[in-house]
């Protein structure tokens, strides 16, 4: 251990401990609020522990028959999207990373452009409807199959891999698809884990597509949409005067408040991600030894 090592270690640990404190606090606070009596939370002053413990917030959010079916739909769309999206994005990324591919530039251009142009809500709705994707489960999976951002990230990663691996495989007579599945995919694990995480989280958190395309079919409702619904009925901050007045008229004593619903929602949505996360994390925190996979 040199002096530099020790100083570096001190800096590293102190700054990380500081970061852990400021990033853990909001979550602990949210957790405390979610287990606290809603009306009592309205008084403020809750930090790390609930003051008036209750499970009522969870009961009122999860205790609805709708929630279970919606959770199933959410899990399904997340799993399917993650699988399809990660695989197909990687495949296109591989094709576009081949320097000899004559349509590489054209296709890259087509994809890059999509990041910055948008036809707008109404034309997109018309498209989905004419494709039969309204009131249809597949609207959750199909439109986002390959996204430009993820594509570019994976392509950049592939560019960083040693070209010699591909060449030697080619000499051995392997075709592009074989090279992709046998060599590139295994080497891409860290970036694929990252993209899978991005896709999964985006799908798990999505509710706007349900709102646009599937809102009239309760069988296709997603968990986030159901939670948004409960939040909206508990009177949302971005709501309108009419909404709030109507609720005040019906509500009388409301035992769930927007604050407690939001906290509980956050926990419900985050916990599954936190559970799945370590399985992906090992790919990019531990790191891969390229040498190990080379042969």
């Amino acid at each position, binding site marked *: 251990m040199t002096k530099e090592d020790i100083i570096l270690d001190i800096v590293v640990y102190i700054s990380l401990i500081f970061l852990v404190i400021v990033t853990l606090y909001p979550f602990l606070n949210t957790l405390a609020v979610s287990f606290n009596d809603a009306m009592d939370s*309205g008084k403020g002053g809750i930090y790390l522990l609930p003051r008036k413990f209750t499970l009522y917030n969870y009961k009122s959010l999860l205790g609805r028959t709708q929630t279970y079916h919606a959770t199933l739909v959410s899990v399904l769309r997340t799993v399917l999207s993650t699988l399809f999206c990660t695989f197909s994005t990687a495949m296109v990324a591989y094709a576009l990373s081949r320097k000899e591919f004559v349509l590489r530039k054209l296709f890259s251009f087509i994809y890059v452009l999509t990041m910055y142009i948008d036809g707008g809500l109404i034309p997109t709705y018309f498209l989905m409807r004419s494709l039969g994707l309204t009131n249809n489960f597949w609207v959750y999976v199909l439109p986002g199959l390959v996204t430009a951002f993820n594509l570019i990230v994976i392509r950049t990663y592939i560019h960083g891999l040693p070209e010699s691996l591909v060449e030697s495989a080619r000499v051995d007579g392997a075709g592009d698809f074989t090279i992709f599945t046998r060599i590139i995919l295994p080497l891409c694990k860290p970036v694929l884990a990252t993209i899978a995480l991005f896709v999964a989280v985006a799908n798990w958190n999505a509710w706007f597509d349900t709102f*646009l395309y599937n809102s009239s079919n309760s*069988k296709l409702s997603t968990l986030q949409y159901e939670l948004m*619904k409960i939040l909206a009925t508990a009177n949302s901050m971005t709501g*309108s005067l009419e909404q*709030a007045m*109507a609720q005040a008229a019906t509500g*009388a*004593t409301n035992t769930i408040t927007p604050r407690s619903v939001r906290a509980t929602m956050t926990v419900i949505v985050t916990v599954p991600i936190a559970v799945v996360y370590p399985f992906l994390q090992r790919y990019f925190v531990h790191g891969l030894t390229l040498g190990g996979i080379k042969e």
Partner: protein
Amino acid sequence: MKRKSLFLLLLIVFTVTATGALVSAQGTKVFTMFWGEPLPDYPGSTIVGDIIERETGVKLQREGLVGDLETKVGLMIASGDLPDMLIAAHFTSLFKDAGMLIPLNDLVEKHAPNIKRLYAKHWEQLKQEDGNVYWLPIQAIPYGPDESKYPELGFFINKKVLKEAGWPVIKTLDQYFDLIENYMKKHPRINGEKTIGYLTLFDSWRNFATTNVPQHLLGYPNEGEFVPVLENGKYVVRQYHTSHAAKVYYQKLNEMYNKGVVDKETFVMNYDQYIEKISSGRVLGTFNQYWQVQEAQEVLLRDDPESILVPFPVVLDELIEEYQRDIPYIQATQGMSITTACKDPVGAIKFLDYIIREETQHLIQWGVKGEHYEVDENGLFYRTEEQKKLFLDPDWRRDVFGGPYFYNSFPSLRGIDQNGNSFMPDRQPNLIYSDSQPTEKEVMDAYGIKAFSELYNKPVDKKYYPLWTITIPAGSPAHIEQTRMKDILNAYVPKMVMSKTNNFEKVWNEYVKAISPLMKEQIKVYQEQIDWRMENW
């Protein structure tokens, strides 16, 4: 292994998607409905809901609003994908403009005797320019109005202040702030924390709690951004944002801000923080509409009953007579409508006719006689202690009883029925006082009243009331002007109140200069509509 699980997944997907198509097929009629406001999901079976379903044979497929209404309405109109019935708040008329609603006149005449009878008083107000009626407002007042415990709005003051001062009656702005200032001097801290003299809410769209005040100081009820003033027998739409009252009011806030009476961060806090501060019991005064402080008041009633808020009708000076209470009105510009997509309009109107009749309304609001309420020898409804307890549990009320699912979002009745019962149990006249909590009773007794709203004058009737139900056409010059005006209010009011006292005059003049040109178009639209209402209602 992997293939198998993928196959299994696909199988589940198909079952999930396939079951979506199989919604109740036998015998019952199904109507799809959309509401332009958030609604909880109907649990499938409730006491009230099952009775309604049995008696009408109608099953509802409900959709409430989740995202923003503008997007939803735009998509629905553009695509023509409509439910059978809909109500989309102030955008309902856009569906009519797009020719997507069917006129109700003939349907009501032929198939809906109850609607005809109960909306008779409002019928003229509902007619559009073409003489047709396209929607039923969600509230009708067929007999007489009723009373509520709390008035719609007021300058609220902490009970502790009133008690210490010997229960004074507060009339003017100066009296109100004097009381607060004196109490604050004597008690700089409450429950170990700093006393907050006055709080004014300014969080995004809720900022009307601050900017609406000048009209009330002049004695008017909540008209909105402009006030129709009776001049030579005609209602002329006037602005109040640069009135003398506005100047006195902002100057007073400015003075109090610099004295430390108005909370330092009052213009920076959001609604949650506002409720938080009031709930702590250390806020002495705030102006608002009651429904905006209700949440805090309920916490105070439970945890700190001596600090509850008491409303007063405060005006600018002794010369002004206040009429701040709402005149009972219906929202004539929006309501439940039947769309061109509805295959059975007769069935739909019959269903609505069933919902609106008195028996169904009593079922929805009061419940089943003998089970959820009793009737005394005078024919007045009441609830026993046990029944009351049931209804105090909001979960039971909503998901087991189920009444709330058919109230407020459907056409419904308000006020007093022909026997003197209120349609809403909370407003049953003989029960308001007796059902109040001890701490509320103490205040009522001190002022010799049976409800806080008795501290206010009875409203005087105005045919057009209120101005704010007039919808400014979306995207029109008046609409753009309105947004700009609100932007100016949003930017200048905090500046005025928070400036140094000797700087106030300067900021006020800047504000007047900025806001004055931004009212012409709106006044024009409002004036036209007020004239129309005075002529046709």
